[in-house]
């Protein structure tokens, strides 16, 4: 049993699943940057009272699951999403979908994901893959971060679908319910509303820990890490920041480059010169984040580590916040043609 399905690689798993599933359902215009931008994927949050793997909880993108839901909704495509309490039921429904010729998005944990390198297998439960067939005991898997399609035995798949802990997937699967063609008009509208929602999330979200404010808040915290945590733990915290920013899925620069690519693609739908300029600003923001990562690496590798080095780190984040604030303000000033 095999669905006629084209594996495509992406930077980020949820973008990739969204893009591939939508293409399969007739939305030929969709690309990873468009899916990310329409789903208002760009974000920043630092949750100070939460720990992930004994380090700070930092994210550069929106909450898992939202990009798929928002992008499909904006394009007028109905979505089915199911969770299960029993693995048997979860497999039964999955097989039913495959028999109907549907490729299916599944949320999985990476700790037991056998085709991942060991170094990447932490208990992280918000990874996304597509199942597109079954041959004997092997499920055919399209994992967007991999170059090639791969496979998992039914036991292995069940294990990752029922991984436990934070964000436990509980067998969650999701797919667009029907094939639909999307008009250029719909694309234009989806792009515009995706940008507007992202402006809201980055500029106007209440509280100090998220959006542009969140970047500044993190910057101030970082400059205190050396005294508060000691050099070693401060280094580990910075390493975690860099992993959230650069590890598989971000496309580099904490998703800022994907967003810049999105604005370039948006220009094809809305030929407004501002979009091209603002795209460059996001590239600049991504470059600042990359410089910050190099600075952080100097610290966690023990090459540098004075308070001045931590202050430099803080200043990189301040600079990124400033560039992103200006970019989003410029986006909010765009006069969209009716």
């Amino acid at each position, binding site marked *: 049993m095999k669905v006629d399905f084209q594996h495509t690689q992406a*930077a980020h798993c949820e973008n990739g699943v969204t893009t591939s599933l939508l293409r399969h359902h007739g939305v030929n215009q969709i690309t990873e940057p468009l899916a990310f931008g329409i789903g208002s994927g760009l974000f920043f949050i630092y949750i100070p009272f939460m720990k992930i793997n004994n380090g700070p909880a930092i994210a550069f993108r929106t909450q898992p699951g939202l990009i798929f839901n928002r992008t499909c909704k904006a394009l007028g495509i109905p979505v089915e999403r199911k969770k299960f309490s029993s693995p048997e039921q979860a497999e039964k429904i999955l097989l039913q979908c495959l028999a109907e010729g549907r490729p299916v998005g599944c949320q999985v944990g990476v700790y037991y994901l056998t085709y991942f390198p060991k170094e990447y297998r932490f208990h992280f439960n918000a990874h996304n893959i597509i199942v597109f067939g079954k041959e004997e005991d092997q499920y055919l898997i399209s994992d967007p971060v991999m170059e090639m399609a791969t496979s998992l035995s039914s036991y292995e798949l069940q294990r990752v679908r029922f991984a436990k802990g934070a964000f436990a997937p509980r067998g969650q699967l999701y797919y667009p319910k029907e094939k639909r063609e999307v008009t250029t008009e719909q694309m234009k509208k989806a792009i515009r509303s995706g940008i507007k929602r992202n402006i809201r999330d980055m500029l106007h979200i209440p509280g100090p820990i998220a959006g542009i404010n969140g970047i500044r808040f993190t910057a101030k915290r970082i400059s205190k890490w050396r005294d508060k945590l000691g050099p070693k733990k401060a280094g580990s915290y910075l390493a975690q920041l860099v992993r959230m920013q650069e590890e598989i899925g971000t496309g580099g620069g904490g998703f800022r480059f994907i967003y810049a690519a999105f604005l370039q693609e948006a220009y094809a739908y809305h030929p407004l010169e501002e979009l091209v300029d603002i795209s460059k600003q996001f590239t600049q923001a991504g470059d600042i984040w990359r410089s910050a990562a190099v600075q952080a690496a100097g610290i966690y590798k023990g090459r540098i580590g004075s308070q001045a080095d931590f202050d430099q780190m803080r200043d990189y984040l301040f600079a990124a916040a400033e560039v992103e604030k200006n970019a989003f303000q410029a986006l909010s000033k765009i006069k969209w043609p009716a």
Partner: protein
Amino acid sequence: MKKEEIPQDLGALGKITGEVCYVVDESGKYTTVLSNGWEVKSSALDVAWKDVEQRIAAAAEKVKNREASPILFFMELRVMDIGIVAAYTGFWKWQVKKHLKYPVFEKLSDAKLTRYAALFEVSLEELKTMKVHEG
């Protein structure tokens, strides 16, 4: 990031697959290239694993001094925390916390220990003695 600046520092993932990165080409247009890794982030990953190793070593030391039960050691070895161990074994978190105490652990029934052994993928004997033979 410019296309020619994309790092190719072979990392753990790069041996299995290239990663998609978004870069700007000569004409200023966005495109994607595959990267085999970046030294800055592979060293960040190294830091994370060194921290894990240190926590394992610290746990082993605690068990030796009977300040903690072998469950702490295996929890660290499998990169888990109390929440994850509780979720997989079906114990409550407060129970797991109790089982982390050496005297409590010593009195646990084999039935309960088996639940831990299954999660940590070791035999009962290995769970009690902390001797593991990893491939």
